């Protein structure tokens, strides 16, 4: 790729963009907002992992996904980790994402988060850090699949010459994962649906793409209703029972009777059916309490507590402004730190100290002083870079990685993920709303 003439590269780039637009991938990654018809820049230079690197990552990712699920079952059950004093009760029970409506309920197979998206950065040959966990509805997996399709179409020779592990089994594995958590009451082949907020949602393309690959119906709240002990969908032949709902809407919109009463997106009565075991919801309502940025600090503790293992993936050291000592340190060192809102996402509401002006830093100082509990801070990591095509040729750019770990009866991980790249020189922010792009992610076979 390094030796590719500039004209050929430009031609290939145009070809890739045309392919993207034709197939209609023009959505923003969840929570990042933006024009739904906008194209996310695609960088043709793949990001490569060796088999050895991947096997280490894989073990770490699976370990973390297991611990997060164990934590969720625990905090909606007996709360052993809190009784043991390993995590403050306030952080869990006082958390906005803690759903009192599901306390005492254990979802099928004890799984709350069926798709765990773990955002990982690399700082050295052996050093991987977790930036954050996404236990609710991590998006972007359609990019992982489509980036690969496009690369294979454009550079078949590279795939012939290198032993690149395929990712296209993801949809089948996801379907199997969802089927494996069907409710005990379901004694037939389960009917699975994907619940979307609708076609105005920025990730709608991904929803319809996944539903299509899995061969399941793509439904909106209005297509479902509750009657008796079950959830039904409205079809041209009359009501059809639904067993598993892969939802891509937030907890608050699932059931107006249980959560947000003004929601038009949800299904009235859904939570009653769920709690009586008539339907499975993936991810389970309440899973969000595990991916909070303040709870994040304690994930290594969860690994030790539930699995009795040492964590294979490290957390980025984090200062919690809610703690007086931490807060003082953060305020004294704002110029060197990255400050994030506890509930923020998409690279908004975030301060990158070394890249910020005095005014921006002072603005954050005021914000943190006013509401310290709402902020955490992390050191600026020396993030690894990957060769990337830019206007001048090839240049190093910072990247992160989001693999998608599937948790059902078994735990499963496709060799690959979504690599996001900060296209601006020196930028550390990979979010598409902030000038980020995507790359294909290659995991080489042994």
């Amino acid at each position, binding site marked *: 790729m390094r030796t590719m003439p500039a004209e050929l590269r430009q031609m290939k780039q145009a070809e890739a963009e045309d392919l993207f637009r*034709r*197939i209609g991938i023009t959505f923003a990654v969840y929570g990042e907002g933006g024009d739904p018809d906008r194209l996310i820049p695609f960088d043709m230079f793949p990001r490569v992992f060796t088999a050895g690197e991947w096997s280490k990552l894989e073990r770490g990712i699976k370990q973390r996904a297991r611990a997060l699920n164990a934590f969720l079952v625990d905090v909606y059950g007996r709360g052993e980790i809190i009784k043991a004093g390993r995590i403050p009760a306030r952080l869990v029970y006082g958390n906005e994402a803690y759903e009192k409506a599901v306390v005492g309920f254990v979802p099928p197979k004890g799984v709350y988060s069926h798709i765990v998206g773990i955002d990982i950065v690399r700082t050295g040959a052996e050093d991987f850090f977790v930036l954050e966990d996404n236990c609710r509805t991590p998006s972007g997996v359609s990019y992982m699949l489509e980036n690969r399709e496009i690369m294979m179409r454009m550079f078949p020779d590279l795939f012939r010459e290198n032993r690149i592990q395929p990712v296209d089994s993801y949809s089948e594995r996801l379907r199997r994962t969802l089927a494996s958590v069907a409710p005990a009451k379901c004694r037939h082949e389960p009917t699975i649906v994907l619940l979307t907020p609708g*076609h105005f949602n920025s990730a709608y393309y991904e929803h319809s793409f996944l*539903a299509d690959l899995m061969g399941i*119906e793509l439904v*909106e709240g209005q*297509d479902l209703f509750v009657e008796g002990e079950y959830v039904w969908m*409205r*079809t*041209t032949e009359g009501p059809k029972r639904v067993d598993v709902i892969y939802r891509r809407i937030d907890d608050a919109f699932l059931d107006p009777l249980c959560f947000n009463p003004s929601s038009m997106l949800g299904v009235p009565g859904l939570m009653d059916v769920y709690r009586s075991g008539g339907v499975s919801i993936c991810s389970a309502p309440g899973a969000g309490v595990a991916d909070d940025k303040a709870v994040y600090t304690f994930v290594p503790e969860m690994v030790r507590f539930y699995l009795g293992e040492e964590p294979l993936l490290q957390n980025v050291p984090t200062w919690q402004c809610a703690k007086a000592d931490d807060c003082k340190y953060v305020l004294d060192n704002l110029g060197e730190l990255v400050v994030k809102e506890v509930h923020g996402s998409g690279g908004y509401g975030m301060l990158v100290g070394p890249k910020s002006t005095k005014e921006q830093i002072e603005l954050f100082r005021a914000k943190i002083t006013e509401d310290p509990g709402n902020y955490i801070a992390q050191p600026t990591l020396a993030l690894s870079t990957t060769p990337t095509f830019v206007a001048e040729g090839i240049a190093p750019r910072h990247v992160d990685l989001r693999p998608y770990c599937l948790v059902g009866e078994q735990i499963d991980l496709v060799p690959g993920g979504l690599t996001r790249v900060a296209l601006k020189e020196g930028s550390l922010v990979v979010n598409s709303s902030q000038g980020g792009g995507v790359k294909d992610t290659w995991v080489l076979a042994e």
Partner: protein
Amino acid sequence: MLSRTADNLYWISRYMERADIAARLLEVGSRISLLPSAHGYRSEWDSLLQASGTAAGFAKKYGDPVQRNIESYLFFDRDNPASVASCITAARENARIVRTALTSQVWDALNTAFQELRQLERTPRSELELSLMVDWVTRHAAMVRGAIDATLLRNDGYNFLNIGYYLERGDNTARLLDVKYYVLLPSLELVGSGLDNYQWTTLLRAMGAQRAFHWAYGGDVTAAKIAHFFILNPQSPRSLITCVAGMNNHLARLSKAYGRVTGAQGRAAAMLAELETTTVEAIFDEGLHEFLSRFIGESMVLGNLMHECYLSGDVR
């Protein structure tokens, strides 16, 4: 399939057919505008607005029918729900919602039409020739239709798409016929005159059927032949009987696949039975306008039954 999905499919085809009709109306208009502006031909534009059911909306926005305004209104105007731009946008939006029920070829055809439409909208009007715009619409409508026929699974979704096409087409044929007969020729002495013949020829042109008509009938153009061609001739692709037979065919497939018969099948069968047994003479005896009004009413009832029996989501 999901009722909402079926509803989206049904409307994709209705909108595409409607866009096609709007373009055909424009073509007729443009042809007439090339003729010396003899007295009486001007009102042609008004009749076109009547036929597309947009006369009231146009009058409210622009007042008198002026060719350029009518072109804008029928082609680009988003305030006009029956304009080419509105219909193609709505069809593509419906398709986007049900991507999973379409093949990539069908989606590609609809999406390409939409993307090109956006380019047309950005092009200065002085650079757009009406005849090219009309060709553009009929070409894309045909590409969508072709992609559906060539690539789509012959399942219930295919039936809903076709029912939408036939329902819209039959309704449009009836309206166009009605406008010509009733709006333009209120006084009976004009029937059979030179003007009358000219109007009928225009009608054939609007349906893209001028040559087909002459192949089928030969000789002079008469009101009876035209009525037969557009109402009772099963060879004519846009005749009422062709459309109603098409609906019956796809409704029958639905009832077979679902193992149940609904009110829609009964209504469509009754409409077909009447068209199969009636004659042009009987239609003229009843009054062409009366007959067509009745047909338009029955189409509407059938549309409501489709909604009730398949598309609304309240099916039991």
